């Protein structure tokens, strides 16, 4: 037996003992009328609250709602102290007899997880508990009302009686009744607001408990109001009606639970049948939404190769967090393999068995839709990558124009002006003209170097003429860090693959120099299983982010345009390894 089960059994035994004590008190009472009826009604009501509460507790141990439900039953038993003929016990009984009303309101406000939503709800309930105890004090201090004396002529005197004072008692009685009505109205307002804000599945869950609670509070509030107004017969009738509704709450709660289970079981069998009729027709989401009664339901799919979730359109999707109060998710598997997830209203998480059976039923259809989503994700990726390639082309042209303008062109302008100056001085100041010609020569050398660098950036001639190996050797020779060419293919690869491999290595080495704080890089290009595998590894600080900066993304697009894929492994502190696999 688990510790939870042991605790629940202990509480059940405590309820039996407390019920027995209450019954014994009533049996021995010299002033309680209809003892048999009182014992039966009292015990049925109290035990049904405790029993239902313990069942709810056992079903959902993480929720405090069951504990509160059971607590209402225990507080209800406190009223039996008024059956005592001992003045002190009787007086205590009167003081605590109404605590169960507030315990009940506490339970209502804490639905469904047993926790109060806002701080002021706790203050409101605190005021309610205080009022329960303070409410009977006017009668206990200044003597019973006529109605009380009539209804219980043999009740013991109050142990707190100071002196008989009808005026003081009536004034304070009216005051506490008014405060009581205000608290009841406030609780009602909270409950109705919560109902209006709830989603359809939430409403289905809360309806039985909420509406019986509202009915009881309305009756009680009216009874308090009529008591304050002195309409005693109405107070009695409403009080009894309220108690009747109260006694029925556990029953209504259990019926609601059973009905929703039966309805959901029916919906699941219908789902199974309809999924069998036409699997994978794109209507899966609607059918699951109908089966679970949650119109907000979403289906998401797991892409194993990308290691991420996507929605039906193939767009990346973030699953709700575990502590998300509004949304939850349930994984869907097929033959032990994850295919997707159902993202649903959080209230459905209260019924994991139902979600489990729906998820199991949806496995095959989900796999079909997953394949479609995978295709859409691929199309979406291609579209985005195509747009990026076009944009990268435009950017590249802009960069080239800018580099030409700011670099070689400016040098040629300066060269032209210097030559003009030299020409003007060649006869009058030949020495000055000589200096100017030397400066012009220097400017020309720099212009040539810049043009060479630019041309190499566009497409290195050695790559076209002598192949990838020679181009990489030249690249490694120019790099400011040590670059080890560990492996280079002997044969030429197709031109687009050589170009992609060259620029991949060039960009990777640029990044190594700029960001990695590395002392060495190792470059490897090999033909393996019909693929050209390009790898650049360094011994730097790692932590490279593939989503940051356009350089790596541009390379990934270039590789992906050749049907290849690029992988980046860059754990912080352990260097970076960039690997591309391109089919040959």
């Amino acid at each position, binding site marked *: 037996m688990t510790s939870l089960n042991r605790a629940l059994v202990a509480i059940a035994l405590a309820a039996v003992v407390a019920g027995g004590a209450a019954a014994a008190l009533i049996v021995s009472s010299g002033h309680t009328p209809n003892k048999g009826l009182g014992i039966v009604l009292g015990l049925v009501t109290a035990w049904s609250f405790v029993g239902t509460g313990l069942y709810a507790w056992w079903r959902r141990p993480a929720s405090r709602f069951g504990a509160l439900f059971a607590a209402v039953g225990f507080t209800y038993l406190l009223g039996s102290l008024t059956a005592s003929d001992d003045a002190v016990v009787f007086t205590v009984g009167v003081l605590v007899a109404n605590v169960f009303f507030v315990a009940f309101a506490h339970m209502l406000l804490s639905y469904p997880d047993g926790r109060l939503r806002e701080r002021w709800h706790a203050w409101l309930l605190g005021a309610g508990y205080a009022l329960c105890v303070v409410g009977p004090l006017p009668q206990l201090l200044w003597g019973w009302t006529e109605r009380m004396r009539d209804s219980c002529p043999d009740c013991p005197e109050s142990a707190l009686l100071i002196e008989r004072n009808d005026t003081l008692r009536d004034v304070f009685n009216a005051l506490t009744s008014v405060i009581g009505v205000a608290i009841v109205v406030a609780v009602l307002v909270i409950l109705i607001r919560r109902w209006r804000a709830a989603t359809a599945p939430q409403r289905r869950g809360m309806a039985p408990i909420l509406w019986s609670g509202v009915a009881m509070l309305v009756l009680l509030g009216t009874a308090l109001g009529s008591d304050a107004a002195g309409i005693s017969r109405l107070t009695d009738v409403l009080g009894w009606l309220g108690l009747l509704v109260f006694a029925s709450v556990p029953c209504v709660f259990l019926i609601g639970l059973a009905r929703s289970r039966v309805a959901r079981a029916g919906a699941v069998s219908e789902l199974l049948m309809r999924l069998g009729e036409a699997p994978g027709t794109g209507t899966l989401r609607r059918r699951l939404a109908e089966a679970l009664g949650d119109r907000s339901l979403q289906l998401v799919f797991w892409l194993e190769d990308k290691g991420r979730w996507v929605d039906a359109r193939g767009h990346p999707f973030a699953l709700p967090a575990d502590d998300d109060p509004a949304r939850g998710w349930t994984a869907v598997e097929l033959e032990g393999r994850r295919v997707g997830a159902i993202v649903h209203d959080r209230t459905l998480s209260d019924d994991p068995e139902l979600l489990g059976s729906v998820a199991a039923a949806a496995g095959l259809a989900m796999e079909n839709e997953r394949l479609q989503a995978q295709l859409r994700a691929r199309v979406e990726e291609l579209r985005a990558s195509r747009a990026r390639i076009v944009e990268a082309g435009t950017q590249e042209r802009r960069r080239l124009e800018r580099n030409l303008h700011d670099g070689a*062109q400016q040098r040629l302008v300066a060269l032209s*002006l210097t030559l003009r100056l030299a020409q003007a001085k060649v006869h009058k100041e030949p020495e000055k003209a000589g200096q100017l010609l030397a400066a012009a020569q220097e400017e020309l050398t720099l212009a040539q170097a810049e043009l060479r660098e630019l041309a190499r950036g566009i497409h290195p001639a050695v790559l076209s003429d002598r192949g990838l190996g020679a181009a990489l050797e030249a690249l490694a020779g120019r790099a400011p860090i040590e670059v080890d060419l560990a492996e280079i293919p002997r044969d030429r690869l197709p031109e687009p693959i050589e170009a992609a491999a060259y620029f991949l290595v060039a960009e990777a080495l640029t990044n190594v120099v700029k960001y990695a704080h590395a002392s060495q890089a190792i470059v490897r290009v090999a033909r393996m299983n019909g693929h050209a595998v390009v790898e650049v590894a360094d011994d730097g600080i790692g932590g490279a982010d593939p989503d940051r900066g356009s350089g790596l993304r541009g390379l990934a697009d270039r590789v992906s345009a050749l049907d290849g894929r690029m992988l980046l492994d860059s754990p912080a502190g352990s260097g970076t390894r960039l690997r591309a696999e391109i089919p040959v």
Partner: protein
Amino acid sequence: MNVGHRVLIVDDHPSFRATARVLLEAEGFDVVGEAADGASALTEAGRLQPEVVLLDVQLPDIDGFDVAARLTGNDDGPVVILVSSRDSSDFGPLVMRSGARGFVPKAELSGDRLQELL
């Protein structure tokens, strides 16, 4: 010899500013200041009151055409000569509309060429 015209040179390339200064001063112009962008061109023009502003079209902040329009907005504003390493045909009618007196390709800059436009 071109006598005495007070010139402000505006260009973001220091090498051009330096060469143009030597060239113009050798040909008798009085280069009173230099500016590297549009904003400082406007400030320096107000402060130094040059007769001629040699203004590069492509500046890092305000476009040379806008700077020209602002400088020539008043009747007593300086004469603006636009320069660029690009050809004037790259800019279409923008040169005419900017209020500049004329355009000289940078590689063809000389005192005589400037004097022709003044």
